[in-house]
């Protein structure tokens, strides 16, 4: 008993495109399947019908003829001195202005996007009354006080090592020159830790 052909082979057989041993094998299988033989006959009839209705090949019209017709149509249109209607003018100006309006809209959107401040940069958005304190040094404690009498915020540090009395802050502190390099804004590299 012959094994049934796969779909691709069966399609080629229906189109009469199989040859040799493959064709013989499918023919042997189809002999036991009259419905397949009938289907191949139908395909052959359709192919014959189509070939009788359509020419085997058709030459395209001469390109010179095609171009000449276009030139003729342009000459005819240009020769007519028909005024352009108002609506046509409106349409043409609309077509011209649509890309400009789109450009303007995109630029406006870019500008608005650049101008919109994120929520965390809104003035006062993160202005809390009680500041957070972080004390990285072990043994140091910090307390926060809001002094209404003095109109000041006070942080009290406890446990900080005393500064030796030998240190003289006043030697030059009040008479020094200002250096611009002291800020990161004036330098490419971050300010090194002191």
């Amino acid at each position, binding site marked *: 008993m012959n094994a049934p052909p796969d779909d691709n082979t069966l399609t080629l057989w229906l189109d009469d495109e199989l040859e040799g041993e493959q064709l013989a094998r499918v023919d042997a299988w189809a002999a036991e399947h009259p419905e397949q033989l009938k289907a191949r006959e139908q395909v052959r009839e359709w192919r014959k019908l189509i070939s009788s209705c359509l020419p085997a090949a058709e030459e395209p019209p001469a390109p010179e003829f095609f171009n000449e017709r276009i030139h003729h149509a342009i000459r005819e249109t240009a020769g007519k001195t028909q005024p352009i209607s108002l609506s046509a003018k409106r349409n043409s100006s609309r077509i011209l202005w649509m890309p400009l309006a789109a450009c303007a809209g995109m630029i406006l959107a870019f500008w608005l996007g650049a101008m919109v401040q994120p929520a965390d940069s809104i*003035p*006062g958005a993160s202005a809390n009354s009680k500041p957070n304190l972080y004390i990285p040094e072990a043994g140091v404690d910090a307390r926060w006080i809001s002094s209404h009498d003095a109109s000041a915020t*006070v*942080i009290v540090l406890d446990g900080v090592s005393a*500064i030796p009395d030998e240190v003289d*802050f006043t030697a*030059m502190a009040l008479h020094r020159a200002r250096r611009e390099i002291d*800020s990161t804004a004036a330098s490419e590299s971050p300010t090194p830790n002191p």
Partner: protein
Amino acid sequence: MMRSLLPLILIGTLALIPTARAQQDPGKQVVGKIKVEVYHATDGDPKVAGKHALEVDKNLAERLKREKQTCFKHYCLLGSDTKELYRSYENWAEPVKPSDEIMVRFEAQSAPSSDSATLDLELWLGRKKIVKTDINLSIGKPLWVRGPTWRQGHLIISVSLLSIESQSP
């Protein structure tokens, strides 16, 4: 002709926008000024602070005395430094320069309002970060840090917002 040029005009315009903005570097915009001062506060002899120490203004002394934690008999100004507050860059104040014993690092945490600014602020003592805080400073309402002891008294580090610069968009 016009239609064929439109894409080029659009691309050129859009390409110029980020270039111009990058050249300005808005992060360097000065949004305010910060003044850091160091006072020596003592109940003892104020002369121990040194012969160059300046007596603080009487109004300031009275104000300091109104707060219990900063109330002392005498106050001397040891050093002062005024630095710009940048839009996005940090800055350092060195009030007792050339000594780096006391330093204050600060940067804007958000856009300042008309009379106040929220800062990320750090106090460095002896090359060590002692305290870090996020604080909203208002003009006329300083931050006083009662710091370490020194020469029979305490050091008080004052951080105040001097001014807010008008900001361009």
